[in-house]
């Protein structure tokens, strides 16, 4: 529901869309960084240079260096893999869980749909971070935990969305039209209801990807994320915090990267959604 509003709010004329182009470029860059970090990164991400600690951004180190002289640009690039994997994993878990739960809630029998709908509401009542914290404390801090915690915590929101999509598809005019043609419920479900309900999820997934990285970084920020020397972006940000006065770039840049990625993902997702709405 909220995501659709986002899409509406950011709607603008099609044509050449600089925001979309910039977003695609950013995501493409991060994808390349995640797949072949060595191709882009000037240094090894963990290479020590104890005599070059906390150097500000310069030509040699575009993003500066950290407290043990590691090159921040290289760490950000190598961190893309971990951040993106966490993001994809969490968004994937969230969307899959959302599809399963949302479908059960919308199409299950009387009891099943009541129970599942209620359960979705119950879990949705928890603030996301609170839920994620609970899961982290059960599973212990690790990348996998981040994936699961963020995926599970954000799933109820998407599940509600799927449920709404299916219900609205179920009540759509074309479903009645198909019924009037004598098509079987199964045929209507597979031909109309599910495809129409699931189609917007492509857009939702893209936006969820951005959000997952933001939440996962939040966990890293609280010290409940992946282990150093991993350079997952949230962990970089957290590690940089201790040097905020001497080396603000150590906090500023990783945060900026997270924001840029989340923005790019949101922008792409909302453009996909607009195109779906326009029927392209």
């Amino acid at each position, binding site marked *: 529901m909220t995501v659709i509003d986002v899409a509406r709010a950011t709607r603008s004329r099609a044509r050449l869309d600089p925001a979309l182009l910039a977003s695609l470029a950013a995501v493409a860059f991060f994808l390349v960084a995640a797949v072949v970090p060595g191709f882009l990164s000037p240094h090894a991400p963990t290479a020590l240079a104890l005599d070059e600690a906390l150097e500000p951004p310069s030509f040699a180190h575009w993003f500066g260096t950290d407290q043990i002289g590691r090159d921040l640009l290289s760490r950000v690039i190598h961190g893309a893999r971990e951040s993106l994997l966490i993001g994809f994993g969490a968004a994937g878990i969230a969307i899959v869980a959302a599809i399963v739960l949302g479908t059960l809630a919308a199409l299950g029998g009387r009891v099943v749909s009541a129970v599942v709908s209620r359960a979705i509401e119950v879990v949705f009542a928890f603030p996301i971070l609170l839920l994620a914290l609970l899961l982290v404390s059960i599973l212990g801090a690790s990348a996998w935990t981040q994936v699961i915690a963020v995926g599970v915590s954000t799933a109820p929101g998407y599940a509600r969305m799927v449920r709404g999509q299916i219900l609205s598809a179920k009540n759509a*005019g074309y479903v009645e039209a198909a019924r009037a043609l004598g098509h079987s419920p199964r045929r209507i479900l597979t031909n109309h209801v599910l495809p129409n309900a699931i189609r917007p999820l492509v857009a939702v997934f893209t936006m969820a990807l951005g959000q997952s990285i933001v939440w996962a970084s939040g966990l890293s920020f609280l010290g409940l994320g992946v282990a150093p020397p991993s350079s997952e972006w949230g962990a970089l940000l957290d590690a940089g915090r201790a040097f905020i006065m001497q080396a603000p770039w150590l906090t500023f840049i990783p945060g900026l990267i997270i924001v840029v990625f989340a923005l790019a993902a949101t922008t792409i997702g909302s453009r996909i959604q607009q195109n779906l709405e326009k029927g392209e």
Partner: protein
Amino acid sequence: MTIVERQSTTVERRAGAALTVRGLRVDFTRDGSTRDVVRGVSFALEPGRCVAIVGESGSGKSVTARTLAGLAGSGAVIEADEISLGARDLTSVAEHDWRRIRGKQLGFIQQDALVSLDPLRPVGREIEEALRLHGWRSRSDRRRKAIDLLRAVGVPDPERRALQRPHELSGGLRQRALIASAIALDPEILIADEPTTALDVTVQAQVLAQLETAKARGTSILLISHDLSVVAQIADEILVMSGGEIVEQGAANDVLTAPQHPYTRRLVDAVPGGHTRGERLAPQDLTTPNLHLPRAASAERDDAVLEVRGVSKRFAGVTAVDQVSFTLGRGETLGIVGESGSGKSTTARIALALESADEGEVRLLGTPWSGVPERQRRSLRPRIGVVYQDPLSSFDPRWTVGRILSDAIPADAGLTRVERTRRVADLLAQVSLPAETRGRLPLRLSGGQRQRVAIARALATSPDVIVLDEAVSALDVSVQAQILDLLIDLQREYGLSYLFISHDLGVIHHMSDRVLVMTGGRVVEEGDADRIFRAPEHPYTRALIRSLPKPV
């Protein structure tokens, strides 16, 4: 196009004209491209007279109306040789001064008061606001005045109504409240933009009566409408607009009875009614054979394709359909007419077995149709088709026209892929759509084209019966004419039976062999169409037909 100028009117400035417009042009600039929406409109409106602008959607009539109130919208470029309100030149009025003019000298009434009055505020407040904005007396005076105004426009129990919000009022009361707010300061000029569209015919008559009253008091009215029969009621002078231009202009009676311009003629001819029965409404294009349409005299009452016996339906304690019975014969068109809330659409859904009746029985082709499991009905469903008012929502938005039609062809037809493709092409041809429509998405089609696709889909199953639920209500009159012609062609060719549901008495009269009049969920009168319109028996039917605007 040439403008047909009639002698009786001149656009020269007339002394005492309340509103004079000469050479009005409106262009819209957006994203660098310019669209000219109004091209050279001129007229003069004298006190106590009514000038009507008639046209179909996109003709530029509403933009003209708004421009005269200084609200053409963003991106509008306005040029005019003259626009004057009384002696005042309106071409160079600052926004601040416009605010003093609007409401005080210019009243404005829009279509559908449900959305034209703020749904979150009591209607009394809206009327008071009109007074307040022009600094009219004290708050308590305004409150009293609002109630007086409501009373003056015929709202019963105005003290209570003033405190209610639009959704708590009936359509007629809402529209009256809107009129009350527009005439609050007794403006010299009232601009009424489609003031009766979407209203039931009885309510429409009441609203027109209000406008007549205002006119009688000396208010000048600029009426904007697509509906010639409405215009015929009160207009003294008519401007026919098409594509931003005035194509014909003259005294109301002349334009309506002896239209000169081909467009006006087409428009007048396209209006269905008793006099058009058995005739084409739209001029023939060259691709279809020019046939005069004989009435389908072959309608066989005895061969009942659809029988409805004493069905009733209640929703949450409210009876929507009460003991409705009828029989639809092969090749026959049975019209169901009624105002909103009369139960006609629910009756249609029961006939389609998309809604189950609480009581009564439906038989399709002699087989039980109600009260049996859906599984059992499914094989018979292809024999009864349906066309809705809003075809777009009845199409899966992901699917092309070709896929929609192909999907509708029953599987047990046993067609090969090639045969199927050919069948889709045939269907498109039957509804006079070009073959390339197959690859397009319904979203990209015009309203008339969509309705043709919907009809083609209904035809795909080779049905015996098609239920047409307000199937032409959303269309412009000329498009409506084409669709009605098409429906009659198809009926003749395939011996279809139509259950034709509409609120529009003219359309019903034009199409139906027999008519069912419904109100409050009950059938109050049933009979041969001509008989019902000529000599209605039931008081409700009589009231309905009396309120029907005089035929053009």
